[in-house]
């Protein structure tokens, strides 16, 4: 795995080192050039001074004197830099400076003892950079009017040394700073990673039982966004978890009674003392199982409708869907001698087909269940001002106004009704409608005297808004 600390450290130190090398190179180059210019100028000047001092006396020397005059310089031994090389009678670097004077016949008249007996450079006026005894020199040659040659030279390593000193002077503090920088980088990276570590520790301590938001106070500003995002996620998770838990608790509670009934009926069937008792108990076992089956499937439908993100969206014909569901109820309708009036305008809506089927089926089943034998039902699908309406009315007892909000609660059953339902039908209807941006209204049916349920689908956009929420 990549270590942020290590990669930061090496990147920063590497960059710094490269920068230092470049800086060193350029200051060496600049130093060399500056030293060169200065030394070249001084070389010319000292040649001229030599000429000014010596040319006049030398012109008196008409005949060649034979051996040249040799000026002795300092010949001690010294090591070190700066003052360590300077003495009251000379300097250790005198051997690196040399001069020569030649007559017109190219005979050596005068030289410093550091100079060879051959010309430092070919006797041509101007600068030259010869190699003498393996050493690089810089020379300047000047000719007087009488034709004598004055040559001054110095070993190039002097100026290289100076350039090195200048470059070194630039580099040294940087070099010394390098480990310091490493420490600073390590410390600041540690500081940042420690606060990130505290965030990840906090996240590590979160579990489904403890979803409190993370402390954002000691986190660097750059990581606050992360903390906020995690807190948002934690909030949504704990909400979803609470909903699931409530759902499971409700479901477990609601399953107790039908399961008790099933157990009692099974025991009664086993213990029955006559055939009639056994048969009746067995019938009730069958009913109980069917009831549990229905409850389980309603629970699943509701759970599915509550998880909006899992719903699909297709275009479908509401009138066709309602027609199919009504047809499925025909046997019960005729058994109950209930009369159903159907009026379906073609209407297209967008949504999840299984969920919408559950909505329609629950409303129709409720209407059939609560309408007395011989009662009447009206089912209508119509379009009005771009909206799609599903209206289901019955001649049943209706729902009292003060109860109309509560009937949408899970497992709520209206009092005194002789009807055994799961108590989930209208919850499913509400959830599915919400997920599709539709509204559900309960009212009194003017025509049939019972309940009238209206589901109102808004424009397409509402569904999309709801589904992307």
């Amino acid at each position: 795995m990549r270590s942020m600390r290590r990669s930061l450290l090496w990147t920063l130190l590497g960059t710094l080192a490269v920068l230092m090398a470049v800086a060193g190179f350029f200051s060496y180059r600049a130093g060399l050039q500056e030293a060169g210019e200065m030394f070249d100028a001084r070389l010319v000047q000292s040649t001229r001074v030599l000429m000014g001092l010596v040319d006049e006396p030398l012109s008196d020397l008409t005949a060649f004197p034979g051996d040249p005059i040799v000026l002795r310089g300092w010949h001690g031994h010294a090591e070190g830099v700066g003052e360590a090389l300077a003495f009251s009678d000379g300097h250790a670097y005198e051997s690196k400076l040399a001069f020569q004077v030649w007559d017109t016949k190219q005979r050596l008249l005068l030289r410093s003892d550091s100079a060879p007996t051959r010309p430092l450079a070919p006797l041509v006026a101007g600068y030259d950079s010869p190699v003498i005894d393996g050493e690089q020199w810089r020379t300047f040659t000047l000719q007087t009017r009488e034709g004598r040659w004055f040559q001054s030279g110095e070993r190039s390593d002097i100026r290289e040394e100076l350039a090195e000193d200048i470059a070194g002077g630039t580099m040294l503090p940087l070099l010394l700073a390098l480990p310091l920088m490493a420490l600073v980088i390590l410390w600041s990276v540690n500081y940042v990673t420690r606060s990130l570590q505290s965030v990840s520790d906090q996240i590590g301590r979160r579990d489904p039982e403890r979803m409190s938001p993370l402390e954002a106070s000691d986190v660097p500003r750059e990581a606050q966004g992360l903390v906020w995002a995690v807190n948002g996620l934690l909030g949504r998770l704990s909400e979803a978890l609470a909903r699931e838990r409530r759902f499971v608790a409700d479901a477990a509670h609601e399953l107790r009674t039908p399961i008790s009934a099933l157990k009692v009926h099974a025991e009664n069937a086993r213990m029955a003392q006559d055939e009639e008792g056994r048969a009746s108990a067995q019938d009730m076992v069958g009913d109980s199982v069917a009831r549990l089956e229905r409850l389980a499937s309603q629970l699943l439908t509701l759970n599915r409708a509550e998880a909006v993100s899992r719903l699909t969206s297709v275009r479908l014909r509401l009138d066709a869907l309602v027609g199919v569901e009504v047809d499925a109820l025909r046997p019960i309708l005729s058994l109950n001698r209930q009369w159903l009036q159907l009026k379906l305008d073609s209407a297209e809506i967008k949504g999840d087909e299984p969920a919408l089927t559950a909505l329609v089926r629950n409303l129709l089943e409720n209407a059939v269940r609560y309408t007395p034998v011989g009662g009447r039902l009206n089912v209508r699908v119509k379009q009005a001002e771009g909206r799609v309406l599903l209206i289901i009315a019955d001649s049943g007892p209706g729902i009292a106004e003060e109860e109309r909000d509560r009937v949408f609660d899970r497992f709520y059953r209206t009092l005194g009704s002789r009807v055994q339902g799961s108590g989930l039908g209208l919850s499913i209807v509400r959830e599915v409608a919400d997920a599709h941006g539709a509204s559900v209204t309960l009212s009194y049916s003017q025509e049939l005297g019972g309940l009238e349920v209206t589901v109102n689908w808004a424009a397409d956009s509402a569904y999309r808004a709801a589904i992307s929420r």
Partner: protein
Amino acid sequence: MRILLVEDDRSLGEGIRTALRRGAFAVDWVEDGTAALLAAQDGDFDLVVLDLGLPRVDGIEVIRRIRAAANPVPILVLSARERPADRTLGLDVGADDYLGKPFDTAELLARVRALVRRSSGRSHPTLDSGDLHLDPATLEARWKGRTLDLTRREFSLLRLLMEQNGRPMARETIQKHLYGWDEDVASNAVDVHVHQLRRKVDPAVVRTVRGIGYALGQSSETDA
């Protein structure tokens, strides 16, 4: 023995009623809290089996009001609210026993028997009086070691009279304890059952108390 069953779930209520009847209990079944209070007021129940999640008046409130009316009838709560806190609340407001749903039918019947036994001041699970031996759990009745072949109602009548320790009981009271409201009862039903008992067991097993009704008979040794 007459039991008031309060349960709003039709299927479960029906099942429990059948099971209790199998245990030789007369059962009156109501489906909401208001009806339960009315029935309890009327009295003459040996036990109330009470669901808590009831329409109109909640079960806990039903218990409170029954106890507030100084009604000592044993109450067995039968509820889907089965957390310890729920049980504690139910027992503390005056219930005598608490059974969570889903429950075992045999256990329900055993608890019903235990509550009835305790409320009549007995501790022994069987009823013994002279040559007569009754086991409410197995519905077995013996006379002088001989197993009696009794109908549920006859067993019920014998158990009822044995619970009284020889004290006489009015004919109407006996009838109330043998039949639920919804059962068709012939006016001479109790007399018929007494006649059957005398025929199947011994003529002296039930004694007629003039002007009152019936009592458990003297044992055969003293009956001469």
